[in-house]
Every structure is written in structure tokens, then in C-alpha cells.
């Protein structure tokens, strides 16, 4: 089963990252306004999308 490149360990790391990101959005929303929290959430989603795209590109070039 040498083909598996996505392991549960890697996905679990992302669960922790998303949980921390969610906590930061919650904290920002409670401290300021929902709009600020939503904008921060949007920034994080964009960052994650760029990171995911780069990861896929690296995988594609690597294989």
C-alpha cells in the first residue's frame, strides 16, 4: 500500500490547525463585531486555499 500519501496523522494536524483558527475567529468575534470575525475567517480560508493549492502542486511535481 505504498500509494497512500495522505495519512490520518497529516489530517489530524489539520484538525488542530482548524480548531485553533476557529477559536481565533470566535475570540475576535466576541471581542469586536461579527463582521470583523467573518473577515478574519475569510482571510484564514484564503490562506488555507493557497496552502492547499501549493501542497497539491508540490505533490504533482514530486510524483
Amino acid at each position, binding site marked *: 500500500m505504498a500509494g497512500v*500519501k495522505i495519512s490520518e496523522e497529516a489530517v489530524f494536524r489539520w484538525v488542530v490547525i482548524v480548531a485553533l483558527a476557529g477559536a481565533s475567529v470566535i475570540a475576535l468575534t466576541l471581542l469586536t463585531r*461579527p463582521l470583523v470575525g467573518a473577515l478574519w*475567517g475569510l482571510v484564514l480560508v484564503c490562506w488555507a486555499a493557497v496552502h492547499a493549492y501549493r501542497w497539491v502542486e508540490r505533490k504533482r511535481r514530486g510524483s
Partner: protein
Amino acid sequence: MESATVALGHDHADEHHGPPEANQSSRIDRQTLGILLFIVSEVMLFGAFFASYFFLRVVVNPSAWPPHPYELPVAVAGVNTAILVSSSFTVHYALEAIRRGNRAGLKLGLLLTWMLGATFLFIQLNEYVHLGFSARDLSFGSIFYSLTGLHGAHVFVGLMLLTFASIRAFRGHFGPDAEDHLGVEVPGIYWHFVDVMWIVVFVTVYIL
């Protein structure tokens, strides 16, 4: 004579049993491609519901959200979020255990994960009963039940996968090698995905 040679050649070719090797045209290996396509399709599914949610909230009902007199039980949902996030740790523990050959840890981790997932689903259903509004009440009710219900359906599927994995674990299946515990690893990845989606749903629906 010629036909006999052809027939002999054909017999020789038939010595290879089973189907031919699958052609791999993609530069990404098929397991990675499969998981990526699944995750992308799920993200698009949830994305459609989130798009509806924000459209209804920002464009259709820009004044008050949730509309008066409806209120969402944020504290209960927060506790439920903690329960689901902790279930990701227990499924990770189960996989770490089987990687080290610890069968008792695998069983314990899977059982704990199952119980936490079932508790989450039970609290979610209990919340539905006591909310005081239904999916028929305004667009708010429709999108609330659609979004949380879609996620609840995913939790239910995850529980089914965990049930099968647990039964197999108690029957003595799975081993420390990667190919020997794929039946726990794949449900584990799915469970983490369900967990991540709930964090996004919770923050969007209950907090923002």
C-alpha cells in the same frame, strides 16, 4: 497450420490469470487522487449550503439574524463542539495505538470515538426538539436545519463507518503495518473531515 499456431499463441497468453493491471494515467497516485476528489466534492457540497446561508443572511435578511424572537443555544452547541473535537483526539489515539501494536488501545479509542459521536448526534437531535422553530419557519429555519442536518447526516455516516471498524477490531482484525489498518485509517480521515466541517458550521451559524 497457421490457425494452430495462432491458437497455441493464444493459449500461452492465457497463462496470465486475473484482470490486467489498471492503467495509471494521472501523475497523482490513485489513493491520493481519490481522497482529494472526495474532499473537494464534499467541500463544494457544504460550500453550496454556506453560500445559501450567507445569501439569506446578508442579502435577504440584512436586519436581524437570527430573526426575532428566535435564539440559538450557543452554550449547548459549544459543549457539543468540544465533544466532537475531542472525538478527533480519541480516533487519533486509536490509530496511534494500532501503529504500535496495542490492540486494547485501538478498541478503547474506537469505542470512545463512537460514544462521543453518538453523544454529539443525540445532543443535536435534542437541540432540534427544544429549539422552538422548525425548518418551515422562515428562511432562517430552513437554512439552519439544512446546514446542521447535512452535517448531522455526515456524522451518522461516520458512526456507521466507526461501527464497522469497531466490530472488526473486536474480531481481531487490523495490525501495526499501514496496509493492515487501512480499515481504521480511512474512517479516521473521514471523521476528521466531519470534525473540521462542524467547526466551520459552528463558527458560522452560532457565533458570527
